[in-house]
């Protein structure tokens, strides 16, 4: 049988609002397959987002969902997890939401190692508001606010997450659809704060300004730049120039925040 996505989608919500060829839909499908593979229950799963095209994702999911304020998904999600540690909490959003206005929430969620999974759809731009540059826009790329080319270097989201203390960090692309569910499923199973960056495409506001003539060209670029971590081990620095590593990039065990906090409560109660 064809895969039944409908079982995790709110009835009557499709077609979604994303533009033709926008990778956010591919990521949502990967998330659904991951949830299905882990047999996750809708009523035990919270999906939390900020604002942006990517952040529209929870609206389609037939789960417990929160569409919050721009950049604040991590703060709301932390509240959910602290109140109900038994819930699966998944954050979703874009590069702008997560690394610009939400950058501070992002790094501290990583540092705190709270057991949640953050899926960040990096299309290198503020899609929703018409294509302003984001902290992930590459040097030289054009955005509505950098019509002569972006002078800044872009963030490497995965490295940022590792540096800030996330205990599981993976990267995939919208082109490599079969890998997305596996990375997300592994991230969800990891105990601690897990980050999955998906390199994505925004044909509407990024593609057309940066000389991609079609969605297919943008997909081909994702195909070309991605190098699986295992393959990269055998490559020289020269061969890796301009490439982006994909797969599980970082995985360590560290004390998880909800458990640590429960111990604080116990100590406080014992001290009374």
């Amino acid at each position, binding site marked *: *049988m*064809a*895969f039944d996505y409908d079982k995790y989608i709110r009835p009557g919500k499709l077609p979604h609002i994303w533009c*033709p*060829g926008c990778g956010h*839909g*591919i990521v949502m*499908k990967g998330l659904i397959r991951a949830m299905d593979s882990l047999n996750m229950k809708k009523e035990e799963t919270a999906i939390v987002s900020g604002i942006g095209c990517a952040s529209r994702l929870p609206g389609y999911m037939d789960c417990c969902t929160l569409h919050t304020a721009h950049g604040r998904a991590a703060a709301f999600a932390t509240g959910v997890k602290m109140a109900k540690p038994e819930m699966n909490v998944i954050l979703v959003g874009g590069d702008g939401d997560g690394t610009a206005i939400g950058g501070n929430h992002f790094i501290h969620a990583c540092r705190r190692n709270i057991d949640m999974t953050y899926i960040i759809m990096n299309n290198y731009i503020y899609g929703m508001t018409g294509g302003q540059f984001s902290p992930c826009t590459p040097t030289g790329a054009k955005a509505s606010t950098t019509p002569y080319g972006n002078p800044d270097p872009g963030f490497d989201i995965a490295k940022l997450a590792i540096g800030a203390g996330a205990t599981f960090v993976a990267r995939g692309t919208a082109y490599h659809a079969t890998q997305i569910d596996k990375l997300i499923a592994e991230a969800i199973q990891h105990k601690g704060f897990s980050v999955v960056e998906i390199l994505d495409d925004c044909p509407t506001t990024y593609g057309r300004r940066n000389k991609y003539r*079609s969605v*297919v060209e943008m997909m081909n670029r994702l195909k070309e730049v991605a190098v699986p971590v295992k393959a990269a081990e055998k490559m020289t620095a020269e061969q890796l120039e301009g490439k982006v590593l994909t797969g599980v990039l970082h995985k360590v065990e560290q004390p998880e925040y909800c458990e640590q906090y429960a111990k604080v409560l116990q100590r406080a109660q014992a001290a009374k």
Partner: protein
Amino acid sequence: MEKKLPTIEIIEKYCKGCHICVEFCPTKVLEMQGFVVAVKNLEACIKCMQCELRCPDFAIKVTP
């Protein structure tokens, strides 16, 4: 023995005509017909599921 052909269902009201499925089908089973996709050569389908996996719009379903 005759091989069993897959069923490819296209949900036209969801398809946004992005060309992803057409372009990345390894055996060129699909084609654009106006703004939506259509099956051109079902016999060539190798049931790899790549079109279904990559469609951003939940618009194509392959039953092997």
